[in-house]
C-alpha cells in the first residue's frame, strides 16, 4: 500500500473487547460510582439530561448498600415490596431454566431466556398502573411475571396447547396479554417501538390517563422503527417511555455495531430532543427509582423520556444460538455490574430482611411451584406428546368477523 493510501480515509469495524479463547475484558467500560447522580426535575429537557444520558444511575454499591439521592427517592419501599420483586425475578429465572430444558427435550420448538436482565422488567412493571401498555420485545417476560400473568397461560403459550390463550397461532415466547399490559410481541424487531408512540398518542387524544412503554434491544436500535419512534415521540410528545435494553449482544453482533460513534444509546435519544437517562439495569433499586420517576414524568404530561438499561445477556440469544462461537465462555462472570438477584439479595441481607437460608428456601419453593404448573400444563400436550388444537382455531381472528369464505372453509373442514 502506498503512503498516500495510508493517509486517506479509513473505515472502522467495531469489535468486541474479547472473542472466544481470549480473556473477557470489560476494563474499557466506564462504570460510575453508585449514588453519583442526583434526581432531575420531572420536566427536564433533553439538553439538561446530558449528565444522566452519559453517566449511569446506580443505587446499590458493591457492599449492597443503597446510596445517594436515588436511594432517598425510592427510600420508602418496604422490605416486603422488595421481597416481592426478588421472588418475581427468581420466578422468571426458574421459568426460563425449565422452559430451556423443555426445549432441549423437544417439548417445544423454541425459547428465549432473559437471564441477567430480570430486574428491568420486574422493577419497571411495579410502577405501572392498570391500562398502561408495554410494547415488549421477546425478552421481556419479566414484565409479564411481575404483572401476575398466570403461569398456566405463560407456559401454555410455549407449549401451544389448550392452555394457550393465543390458540396455537403464535411462536413460543411471543406472548400477548392485553389485560396484563403486555402487547402482542412482534417477531419483526422494532415494529412495536413506534406503535408504542402511536398508542400513547391515542392515550393523550382520549385523555384516558394511561401511558405506553416501548421496548427495544440495543441491536434493533439500528432499525427504522427505532429512529421513527424517537422522532415522532419528539415531535408529538405523547406519554411514552422509550426503553432501550442494552445487553451488549444482538445474537453475535457486538453492541458497538449499532452504537456507532455515539457515546451511549441514551445520548442518541437526546439528539432527537428527548431527555434520556442511562441506568444500571442489574440494580433493582435503580430500576424501581428510575421507572417511578419516568412514569410520573410522562403521566404528568411532561413528554416522552428514553431510558437505556445497561445490562448483560447472560444466556444464549435463543435456543437456536451458541454464544461460545462469538464471545468468551466466562464473559458473563466478568460483567462488572454483577447479577441482579445476587445484588438484591446482598442488599436485603444487609438490611436485615433476608438471609441465605431464606433465599435457598424461597428458591426451592419457587422451583416447586413452577414445576407443579409445568407438569399440569405439559399434561395437556407438548411437541413430544402433541394434543392438537381445535382446527377451528386456524380460521378465527383473521378478521374481526369471520367472512363467508372462511366460514365455508370451516364447514369444509368439518369443524
Amino acid at each position, binding site marked *: 500500500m502506498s503512503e498516500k493510501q495510508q493517509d486517506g480515509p479509513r473505515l472502522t469495524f467495531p469489535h468486541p473487547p474479547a472473542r472466544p479463547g481470549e480473556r473477557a475484558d470489560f476494563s474499557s467500560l466506564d462504570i460510575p460510582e453508585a449514588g453519583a447522580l442526583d434526581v432531575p426535575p420531572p420536566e427536564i429537557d433533553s439538553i439538561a439530561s446530558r449528565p444522566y444520558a452519559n453517566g449511569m444511575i446506580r443505587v446499590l454499591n458493591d457492599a449492597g448498600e443503597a446510596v445517594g439521592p436515588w436511594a432517598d427517592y425510592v427510600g420508602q419501599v418496604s422490605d416486603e415490596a422488595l421481597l416481592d420483586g426478588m421472588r418475581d425475578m427468581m420466578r422468571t429465572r426458574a421459568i426460563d431454566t425449565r422452559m430451556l430444558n423443555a426445549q432441549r427435550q423437544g417439548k417445544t420448538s423454541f425459547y428465549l431466556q432473559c437471564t441477567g436482565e430480570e430486574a428491568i422488567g420486574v422493577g419497571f412493571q411495579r410502577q405501572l398502573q392498570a391500562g398502561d401498555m408495554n410494547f415488549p420485545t421477546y425478552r421481556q417476560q419479566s414484565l409479564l411475571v411481575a404483572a401476575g400473568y398466570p403461569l398456566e397461560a405463560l407456559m401454555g403459550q410455549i407449549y401451544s396447547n389448550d392452555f394457550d390463550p393465543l390458540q396455537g*397461532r403464535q411462536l413460543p415466547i411471543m406472548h400477548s396479554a392485553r389485560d396484563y399490559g403486555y*402487547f402482542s410481541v*412482534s417477531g419483526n424487531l422494532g415494529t412495536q417501538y413506534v*406503535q408504542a408512540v402511536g398508542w400513547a398518542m391515542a392515550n393523550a*387524544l*382520549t385523555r384516558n390517563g394511561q401511558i405506553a412503554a416501548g421496548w427495544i434491544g440495543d441491536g434493533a436500535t439500528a432499525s427504522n422503527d427505532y429512529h421513527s419512534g424517537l422522532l415522532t415521540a419528539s*415531535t408529538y410528545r405523547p406519554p411514552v417511555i422509550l426503553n432501550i435494553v442494552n445487553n451488549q449482544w444482538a445474537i453475535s453482533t457486538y453492541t458497538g455495531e449499532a452504537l456507532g460513534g455515539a457515546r451511549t444509546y441514551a445520548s442518541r435519544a437526546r439528539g432527537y430532543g428527548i431527555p434520556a437517562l442511562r441506568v444500571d439495569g442489574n440494580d433493582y433499586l435503580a430500576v424501581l427509582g428510575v421507572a417511578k420517576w419516568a412514569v410520573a414524568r410522562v403521566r404528568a404530561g411532561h413528554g416522552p423520556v428514553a431510558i437505556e438499561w445497561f445490562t448483560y445477556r447472560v444466556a444464549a440469544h435463543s435456543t437456536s444460538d451458541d454464544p461460545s462461537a462469538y464471545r468468551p465462555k466466562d464473559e458473563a462472570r466478568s460483567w462488572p455490574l454483577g447479577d441482579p438477584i445476587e445484588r438484591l439479595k446482598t442488599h436485603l441481607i444487609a438490611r436485615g430482611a433476608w438471609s441465605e437460608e431464606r433465599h435457598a428456601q424461597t428458591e426451592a419453593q419457587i422451583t416447586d411451584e413452577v414445576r407443579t404448573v409445568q407438569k399440569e400444563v405439559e399434561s395437556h400436550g407438548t411437541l413430544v406428546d402433541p394434543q392438537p388444537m381445535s382446527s377451528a382455531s386456524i380460521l378465527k381472528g383473521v378478521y374481526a368477523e369471520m367472512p*363467508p369464505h372462511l366460514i365455508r372453509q370451516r364447514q369444509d373442514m368439518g369443524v
Partner: protein
Amino acid sequence: MATEILMPALSPTMEEGTLAKWLVKEGDEVASGDILAEIETDKATMEFEAVDEGVVGKILVAEGTEGVKVNTPIAVLLEEGEDASAAEAASKPAETQEDEDGTKAATESASKPEAKAPAKAKSEKAKSEPDAGAIPEPDWPEGTELKSQTVRECLRDAMAEEMRRSEGVFLMGEEVAEYQGAYKISQGLLDEFGAKRVIDTPITEHGFAGIAVGAAFGGLNPIVEFMTFNFAMQAIDQIINSAAKTLYMSGGQMGCPIVFRGPNGAAARVGAQHSQDYAAWYAQIPGLKVAMPYSASDAKGLLKSAIRDPNPVIFLENEILYGKSFDVPVLDDYTVPFGKARIWREGGDVTIVSFGIGMTYALEAAGRLAEDGIEAEVIDLRTLRPLDYDTVIASVKKTNRCVTVEEGWPVSSIGNHLSATLMERAFDYLDAPVINCMGKDVPMPYAANLEKHALVTTDEVVEAVRQVTYR
C-alpha cells in the same frame, strides 16, 4: 410578431385551473422570467413566468376566472414596436381578422373575458359517467336526487362525514393539514376538525404508519394518507406484519381498525417509482381488506364503509380519476358494502371484469364493441378483498366468455386469480380461454409514447373481446 400566452399545465395531469391573479397589466413591458400571473389548480397555487420578452398587448382571460383549460390563450405578448392591433390579430380567429374596426373588437374582447373563458368546471359534464340507466342494480333507491361530484370531493366528504360521526376518526399523513393534501383530498378538514385530528407528519411513511397502527391498537380509527402508495413500500412491514396479522397473532385480543389510503397506479409521466399498481399485492394478504373504487359515488360509499370497518383497509385511489365527475346520490349517509361488485352495463356476449381506472378502458371498449353488435357485460369489482366472485361467475355462466382489465403487471395479477377461479368454478361454461388485459411486464418508462405502450389500452380490450368471441 405578437405571440399568444397559453394557460400553462403545471403538472402532467392538470386539465384546467383558475387564473387567480394577474401580476402585469396591459402595456407593461416584461422580460423573460418575470412573473405574469398566479395560477391555481386543485393541487397547488403556482406563479407563471414569462418565457419571452415583450409588452403585454392584451389580457384575454380576466383574473378570478375558474376552469380555464390548459393551452387556452390567456394573453397576447407584443414585440417591441408592435401596437395593439397586432394583439388583435393574434388573438382573433382568422375570419374576424378582416374586421375593419379591429381596435374596437379588441377592446370588447378584453372587457368580456367570459366570452373567451371556458365554462366553470362544475357546470361541465366533462367525461361524465357512462349511461347510468344501464345499471341493473343501482346502489341507491330510484328517484334519489343526484348531483355531479368529482372523486376528489367525494373522498373528502366521506372523511368529513365519518369524522363528524365519530371522535375517534382522524387523518394523518404528509401535507394533509396545512397544505390540504398533496392532491387536495383533505381540503377544508383542518379548518373543521383542527390540528388534533388532521395531523401533518414528518416524512417517514414507516414512522407514521407505525404510530397510526399503534393508535388503532389503542382504540382510535386512523386514516393514513400516503402521498402515493409507491411510498407505502417503506411502511409495508407495519401494514402487513403488524396491522394485518396482530388480531390473529394475539388470539383476537388486539385488532387494528385503520384505513390506509392514497393514489395508486400510474398517473402521467411520473416514471417507474411513482406509477405502480398495488392491487394484487395487498389483495393477497389475509387480514387486510382492499377497495379500489372507480366512480365518485363508490369512492364515497366505500371509504365510509372502510372507516367504520374494524379491520385494516387498503383504499387504492387513482390520481387521474380524482378530477372526474360522476353522479352521486344526495343522501345523509351513503355507504357501499365491501364484497359487492357493480354491473355497469349488461350484455350477453362477453363479460369484461375490471376495477379502478381499468374501468375506463373496459367501458370505452364496451361502447366501441356495441357499435359492432357485440354486447359486453361490464363488471366493476370495487373491492378486491373481499371479492365478489358470485357476480363474476353468474355473468360468465350467461356470456361464456371473460376478459379482465387492470393496469398492474401480468404475473400473479387479479386477472390471473379470476382466471383460475373461473376455471375451477365455471369451467364447463367457458367457450374460450379467459384473457387478462394487463400493463406490460416492465417498470413504467417516462417518455410519453413509451408510457402509453406500457399501459393497458382500450384497443387491447377490444381485441381481446374479439378473440374470445371469435369475431
